[in-house]
């Protein structure tokens, strides 16, 4: 066997297979994770903007003098809103 043939045979022996479903699946998984993180990150500005808007509107909401609501009800309403926001973000993450 000539040195040139040895070289080609040794290189061929070290080559990756033409198809590798395990590698392809692992790569797809990492892409999906990256997409999920990107989706969650993309929703952060919306959440921040929403929080800022609520903060700005706080005096107006206070002026409404919603005497019907007591502290517990306000807390419950805030909890519902927070849960809804978390579900929206989680849905985006899981969809990725």
């Amino acid at each position, binding site marked *: *066997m000539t040195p040139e043939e040895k*070289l080609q045979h040794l*290189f061929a022996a*070290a080559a990756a297979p033409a198809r590798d479903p395990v590698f392809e699946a692992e790569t797809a998984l990492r892409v999906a994770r990256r997409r999920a993180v990107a989706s969650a990150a993309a929703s952060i500005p919306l959440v921040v903007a929403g929080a800022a808007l609520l903060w700005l509107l706080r005096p107006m909401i206070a002026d409404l003098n919603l005497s019907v609501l007591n502290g517990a009800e306000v807390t419950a309403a805030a909890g519902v809103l927070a849960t809804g926001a978390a579900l929206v973000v989680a849905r985006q993450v899981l969809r990725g």
Partner: protein
Amino acid sequence: MTDAELARAARDGSDAAFARIVARHQGAVRSFLRRMCAGGREDADDLAQEVFLAAWANLGRLRELSGLRAWLLGIAWRKAQDRIRRGVRTAARETAWSQQVVSPLGISAEDRIALAQAMAGLSPVVRACIALCVADGWSHAEAAQALSLPIGTVKSHVARGRARLLAALGGPDDT
């Protein structure tokens, strides 16, 4: 589908198209990285996944869609350079290379080790040219595109590197 069609579809958000790109080009990217990097097959494959992640994130920047393979190998080359710069020692590279390769029939373990040591002795850019043009049969032009080198430089690197590898395997040393 052609590479250009797949790249266009993947850029438009098709996961199936991107999966086909990975399936089509994983062999070339992984083989290249196995020849370039220390740390064995697992490290090279992990780096190959990073290459495809970077490709997925930057598909929008790919101008010439038909040049997808060279573009992917260009990313692989830059990642391999980063990995090499992060302090990979020659001894580790020699060991990794020799462990990766199973001797084909008719080739001695001495030849296998000699090739490993000769590959480790090449500079990264010469090794990259050898990996693409000699090991994987790329044209000089395509390798030049992937490695962002002048074609004349690729030709000279290939000639010099091949001579050193052949000398290590018992051929004439014409360097």
